[in-house]
């Protein structure tokens, strides 16, 4: 088969890309009203110093500690259950968002899909992809506002918000993993007379599972941070307490809560990193 010689990247092209990027940067700088003087000017620095001084020492009274502890546990629980809910949503939906399982690729070369059947399968794929996009593009905080409205205040809307948004994220990632598995073993399984479902169970999933787990753990790390924020709109956990502490100018209690967030995020990051390192 004749191949074209590899095209040499042209220098002019690189210059144009560089200039375009610089223009974009300048425009964004202007657009966001970056004002270094107000941050690092004398007045700015003084404000920072005043606020930081108010944070210390952290409130270590029994009441504040137990509130921070309860908040941390609640945030941890929201992130864990939310992430599990996300996996439960992502697994079935990712099958719909995988072209190679639905209508094309190595598993379909042996048969000619009826045009109607192919259209139906393409429809499933498009619908699956679109649904995942909707889940994913709506931020957790918006989902949280919606669910607070639906089920009321507390950790439960937080769980739902994380589960639904992260379900969309993981569904897309899982679908990409499923499309990327090595097709050679699948062809061999197909040649033994295995049906597509059996090939999925026996050949596709064993190859994909380690990456599924790795992505899910990574999203759990993201979710523990997100869970802390969701409380701001009334979805429970440390965030809700932080919001109250800021609103009531309880700076020392705020510091205790910030330390609690730091501790729990570090804990989850370490746990997740350890679990991911065990997967090879």
């Amino acid at each position, binding site marked *: *088969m004749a191949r074209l010689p590899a095209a040499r990247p042209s220098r002019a092209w690189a210059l144009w890309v560089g200039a375009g990027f610089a223009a974009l940067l300048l425009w964004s700088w202007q657009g966001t009203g970056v004002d270094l003087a107000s941050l690092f000017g004398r007045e700015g620095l003084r404000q920072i110093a005043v606020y930081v001084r108010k944070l210390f020492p952290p409130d270590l009274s029994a009441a504040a500690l137990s509130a921070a502890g309860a908040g941390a546990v609640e945030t941890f629980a929201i992130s864990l259950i939310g992430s599990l809910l996300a996996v439960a949503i992502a697994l079935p939906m990712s099958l719909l968002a995988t072209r190679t399982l639905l209508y094309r690729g*190595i598993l379909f*070369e*042996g*048969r*000619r899909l009826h045009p109607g059947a192919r259209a139906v399968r393409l429809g499933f794929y498009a619908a699956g992809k679109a649904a995942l996009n909707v889940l994913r593009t709506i931020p957790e905080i918006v989902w949280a506002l919606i669910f607070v409205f639906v089920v009321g205040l507390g950790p439960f809307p937080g769980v739902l918000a994380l589960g639904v948004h992260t379900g969309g994220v993981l569904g897309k990632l899982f679908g990409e993993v499923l499309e990327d598995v090595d097709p*050679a*073993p699948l*062809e*061999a*399984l*197909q*040649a*033994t*007379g*295995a*049906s597509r*479902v*059996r*090939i999925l*169970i*026996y*050949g596709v999933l*064993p*190859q994909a*599972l*380690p990456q599924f787990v790795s992505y899910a753990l990574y999203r759990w790390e993201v979710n523990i941070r997100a869970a802390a924020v969701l409380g701001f709109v009334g979805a429970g956990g440390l965030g809700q307490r932080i919001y109250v502490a800021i609103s009531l100018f309880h700076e020392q209690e705020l510091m205790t809560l910030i330390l609690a967030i730091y501790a729990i995020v570090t804990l989850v990051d370490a746990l997740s990193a350890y679990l991911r390192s065990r997967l090879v």
Partner: protein
Amino acid sequence: MYELSGVRKVFADGSVALDGISLTVGRGEHVAFIGPSGAGKTTLFRILNLTLRPTAGRLVFEGQDASGLSDAALRRARTRIGTIYQQQNLVGRLRVVHNVLAGNLGRWSTLEAAASLVRPRSAGQAATALERVGIPEKLYARTDELSGGQQQRVAIARVLVQDPDVLLADEPVSSVDPSLAVTIVSLLRDLSHESQKTLLMNLHSVELALHYFPRVVGIRDGRVRFDLAPEKVSGELLAELYAGDRDEEQALERFQDGKNPFGGACRPLPGFGA
């Protein structure tokens, strides 16, 4: 077993892999396919194992026109054809026992297949198959930790479990060293001989084809160039088959000089070949 007439395969990118192959293979026959790389041998085997559909022409397997088969009938027909690939095509993350038992996937229900991944349904069957290919100790090893030659044996064990009527081996020895190649080719031949299976093998090595097979088919540019008993395959025919393929021409020269890289280990089974 197989009747092919005018089988063509044109891929989506327009490249013609097979350009009118006509061929009949009887039950229990042993046939070697040789030819330069890119001749279309692998495509032919993918059509023969019914995972790829010809663009034109007729493929009759056991009296059934393959193009007329429903999905279920196609899968039933595939259970009767065992394929061994050039790359071992195993699921590397699974244990050997699961890869061997995958030969049952055409028989098992989906539920049985899933359950077997948790607890092997018939570990004894897998152990027996591994014993026949000489690596019984690897039953619970992780497949991707095995050497290339061992993985090829696992692939053969999978086919033993599948117990098909036809064995297709697509360059089963191109990734193993010469002495192992002889072992694997003779293993496949003996296994199919004792259970009277049809054996079709793509071979990179002319020596192995001529020594082990009573019928040798030369393929070039997607067409059958010759279809002869090994003693009738002349040096000119081989030179013509491989013309323009440098590596092959050199290997051929060495072979014709009498320096058989496989040495004395390469002797035909009585009643076969020269």
